[in-house]
């Protein structure tokens, strides 16, 4: 995983650790925090190193203060001194600008607040270094800003913060130094003032970023029309339309009706209202391993999923040669890197799996495409391939619904952006005039 890596984090600095998926960032963080052990080498620490994981490790059924003091509860004889604990948590929150109700149940809290609880839990142990693993992955822009102001306050108090991320915007806005990890090796380390974004990106992928075809202006007819869509419990009265040759971006914080919208359009969930859409539809589902592929099956069998009837060409029997040819076509056109099309899909990296999923959705040139977080958790190279293929599909005249939790992705690809919050559209931005702050505010419906 890691080969001869050294890393320092000084008191009061923000040090960004960047790299693609699988570069070894999380492993390095685990070793630094003492959760994993290295084969050789050592970790020298002055004080405690706290680690906040990408996937939170809170106990949902306990309240905030219980989570924060877990493991070092203030005691009074055999019982927990609740008042002391509550006060402690409240004061800690005030000190770092992390305001949370100590008595709130964790399961009732939104993602951004849960992260504050995670931070509080680590801060309660007085760390000299705090490592944050992909801290902004699930946050809205407003919450991201808030998080970085908290981080600034930590550094003022002399805490060194190591931020693991792949978002270069954040690196260049906030970090003092950046270390780039590629395949377990440090390939670049410099103060942020002495390096450009281009150089960092190049160091991360070890080469040039694949170029994305330019946006061509198209004026297609409206082919997807949703009127007064209601999905009980999630979507109330949502209307939208997408023209041929247009990418409509849907911005929003996770859990605001995006899944129900995608499912209703795909015909997977009952709804009220009306949906007009082309019959030929390509879908890139959100959760690759559960919703899109069968990991233990070969590439050929996965490439066939959803097209198995077509592969039988009217008979009962699947035309294997044709299925293999189809898979080969996807593999070649979408740059899926594999040793064999008969290999189990699970042996491929996430990015290559996703390229197969995207290829399967786009290879027949469907008139309508639903792309739901099409690049979530995949590396820069694969992301560029997916982005350029989506734009190519658009330029060929497909109507594309792009639902993404990454504003950068929406800005890069969309012709138009609508903001979804609590099951309804809260704003629309046309002509590619996207206002990040305004979108961020609408996302949290402020």
């Amino acid at each position, binding site marked *: 995983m890691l080969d001869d890596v050294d890393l320092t984090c000084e008191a009061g600095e923000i040090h960004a650790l960047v790299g693609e998926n699988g570069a070894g960032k999380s492993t390095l963080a685990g070793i630094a925090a003492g959760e994993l052990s290295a084969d050789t080498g050592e970790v020298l620490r002055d004080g405690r190193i706290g680690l906040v994981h990408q996937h939170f490790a809170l106990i949902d059924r306990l309240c905030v203060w219980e989570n924060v003091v877990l493991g070092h509860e203030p005691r009074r004889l055999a019982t927990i001194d609740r008042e002391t604990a509550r006060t402690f948590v409240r004061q800690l929150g005030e000190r770092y600008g992390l305001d949370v109700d100590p008595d709130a149940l964790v399961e009732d809290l939104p993602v951004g607040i849960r992260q504050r609880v995670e931070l509080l839990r680590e801060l309660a142990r007085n760390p000299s270094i705090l490592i944050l693993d992909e801290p902004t992955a699930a946050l809205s822009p407003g919450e991201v800003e808030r998080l970085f102001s908290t981080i600034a306050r930590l550094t003022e108090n002399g805490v060194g913060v190591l931020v693991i991320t792949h978002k270069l915007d954040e690196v260049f806005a906030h970090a003092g130094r950046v270390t780039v990890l590629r395949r377990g090796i440090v390939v670049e380390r410099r103060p942020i003032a002495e390096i450009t974004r281009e150089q960092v990106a190049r160091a991360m992928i070890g080469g040039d970023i694949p170029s994305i075809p330019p946006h061509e202006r198209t004026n297609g007819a409206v082919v997807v029309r949703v009127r007064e869509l209601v999905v009980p419990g999630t979507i109330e009265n949502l209307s939208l339309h997408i023209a041929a040759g247009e990418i409509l971006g849907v911005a929003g914080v996770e859990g605001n009706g995006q899944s129900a919208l995608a499912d209703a359009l*795909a015909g*997977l969930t009952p709804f009220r209202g009306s949906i007009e859409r082309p019959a030929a539809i390509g*879908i890139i*589902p959100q959760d690759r391993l*559960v*919703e*899109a*592929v*069968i*990991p*233990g*099956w070969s590439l050929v*069998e996965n490439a*066939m*999923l*959803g097209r*198995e*009837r077509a*592969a*039988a060409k009217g008979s*009962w*029997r*699947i035309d*294997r040669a044709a299925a293999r040819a189809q898979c080969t076509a996807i593999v070649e056109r979408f740059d899926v890197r594999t040793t064999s099309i008969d290999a189990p899909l699970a042996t491929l990296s996430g990015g290559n799996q996703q390229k197969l999923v995207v290829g399967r959705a786009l290879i027949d040139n469907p008139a309508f495409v639903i792309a739901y977080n099409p690049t979530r958790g995949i590396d820069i190279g694969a992301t560029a391939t997916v982005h350029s293929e989506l734009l190519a599909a658009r330029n060929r005249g497909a109507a594309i619904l792009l639902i993404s939790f990454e504003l950068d992705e929406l800005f890069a690809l969309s012709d138009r952006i609508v903001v979804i919050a609590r099951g309804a559209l809260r704003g629309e931005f046309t002509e590619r005039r996207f206002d990040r702050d305004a979108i961020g505010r609408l996302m949290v419906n402020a």
Partner: protein
Amino acid sequence: MKRESVKAMLVGTLGVVAAMSLAMLASHVSPILGFNAFFYGAFGGKQQIAETLASTTALLFPALGIAIAFRAGLFNIGAEGQLLIGGLLAGWLGTRIDVPPALAIAAIFIAGALGGAMWGAIAGWLKAARGANEVISTLMLNFIAASLALYLVTGPLRAPDAAGPELSLLPHAYWLPTLLSQTRATIALPIALLAALALRYVLDRTWFGYRLRAAGEAPEAARRAGISLSRVALWAMAWSGALAGMGGAALVAGELHRFNTQLSPGYGFIAIAVALVGGLEPLAICVAALAFGALESGGLALQAAAAVPKDAIHVIEGLLVFALAARRYLGAKGVTAQ
């Protein structure tokens, strides 16, 4: 999958040998003498081999059916009931038609398949339309099948000449031809083997088999790819029942030559073990069915010769399923944990 089934079979065989040795020691029988009696009972002569093959056949049909359902992710434990209803319909039709023997035998098997398919499809439909758990519904349908069959053979369909609750004897011409003369080994065995080959082909090569496997392997991915899980559930249960029902027809036309409610001493349940030991692969299931067939006939000999109760063999079969189920569960858990 192939290697998995071989491994499962090896582990299973070793486990069975060990458990049988223990059972023999517990009955104060030397394992050497015990295994001697066992193997004689299973393979010692024409009659013994025929008994083994007859049991193999009786297990193979429902085991293949169970494999269909399991591959679709449906825990059909109602093969016993499906087999019974299939046998009932086959036994009834066999006494009602007057056609050339080859045609009659085909009709009897088709009637068995239809009866079983109908019974399986009830659970499939309940699952598809109402989301009813197929474990519960197939289990309960076993009881309903047994009660229904008993009612029909004691009441409306009871043979006028019959001594007990049973249907009339099939015309002699409709009895299945034997493989070995004067034995119970009939052409039902090659029919079952053909069914296994056909099933393998369907699962591997057709779009229906592909959908079935996809629905079983990754239901959410299958559903999102446009595969109707309800339709898969309905058809998988129907085909599953059809094979079990053919097993019932084979018992009626090949062994009892009439339907009665004692048709199956639990073949539909032992077949679950056969299907699992065979790793749900049709060809491996054939081998597993032979092994279980030998256990059945050898177990009887063991009981007769060495007073090791035949129930001990059933306990061993049960333990085998238990071990396999645990292994599967633990295996699946390991995958999720990664």
